[in-house]
């Protein structure tokens, strides 16, 4: 059902791949104790969303490829997010001398 003979790879195959990638990213985001790994998990989730947008744009919106334009914007915002996130991480590391997520309880209470 996923791989039909009419078109080589169908839309649900891409969507399932993207959802797998997204769920792996969510698990890594919750369970990572290294702050750099948390940022990597966020990048994985953003890539899953990009893959979703691209597959919808290719299969359902082949004429006006709006999904691809959105993907370009998401890539831009992801680059900005990575830069600011790593800068925050560096300044946290300078203050706390650790990258353990469990020790960052500055805003807790």
């Amino acid at each position, binding site marked *: 059902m996923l791989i039909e003979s009419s078109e080589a790879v169908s839309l649900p195959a891409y969507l399932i791949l993207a959802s797998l990638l997204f769920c792996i990213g969510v698990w890594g985001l919750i369970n990572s104790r290294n702050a750099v*790994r948390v940022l990597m998990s966020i990048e994985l989730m953003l890539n899953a969303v990009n893959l979703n947008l691209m597959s919808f744009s290719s299969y359902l919106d082949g004429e006006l490829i709006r999904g*691809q334009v959105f993907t370009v914007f998401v*890539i831009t915002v992801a680059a900005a997010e990575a830069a600011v996130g790593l800068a925050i991480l560096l300044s946290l590391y300078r203050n706390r001398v650790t990258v353990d997520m469990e020790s960052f309880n500055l805003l807790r209470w």
Partner: protein
Amino acid sequence: MNIAASTEIICFLILGSIVILGSLGVVLLKNIVYSAFLLGGVFMAVAGLYLLLNASFVAAAQVLVYVGAVNVLILFAIMLVNKKETLKPIKGLQIRKILSGSICLGLLILLIRVDITTPWPLPGPVSIGEQATERIGEHLFTDYLLPFELASVLLLMAMIGAIVLARRDVFSTDIETGNNAGQELIEKSNAPLIIDKTS
């Protein structure tokens, strides 16, 4: 099934397995340097999937921005904060992992169910294929002009914010002697700039 379709299926399966195994490695591996390099592999495989979806421009942008910029940035961050530290054990960590894993599995099952049961209006309009780059350019300068300009402002803000957050506070005069400190050679001194608070 003709040869083009089978080639596409084989490419999809290879790239998909690279993506899934690579992302599992990113999340699960102990050594974070291996995770960062695997993340680059995942980005490259996702770019290959974009090529399968007839989107050469976005694939090139993915390689340039993610592999060329974000991954290198992450590697630099790892090098800057790479200190061997033994993490304190937390009670209930195993339960936490199992609980979050089951929640993620539930989310995955929900998403796959939505994927399979929704009647997608296939086949959609005919894909424009190789003209995608021109169409993206038209979009960016006509109906998506405002988001395009906002993205450039956002990039500027992110650049300034990253510089402000990440720079060290530097004194213009030496604290001990009172002389002017050589600003251009701040890295020359062997004294650690990060005070080791653990000892």
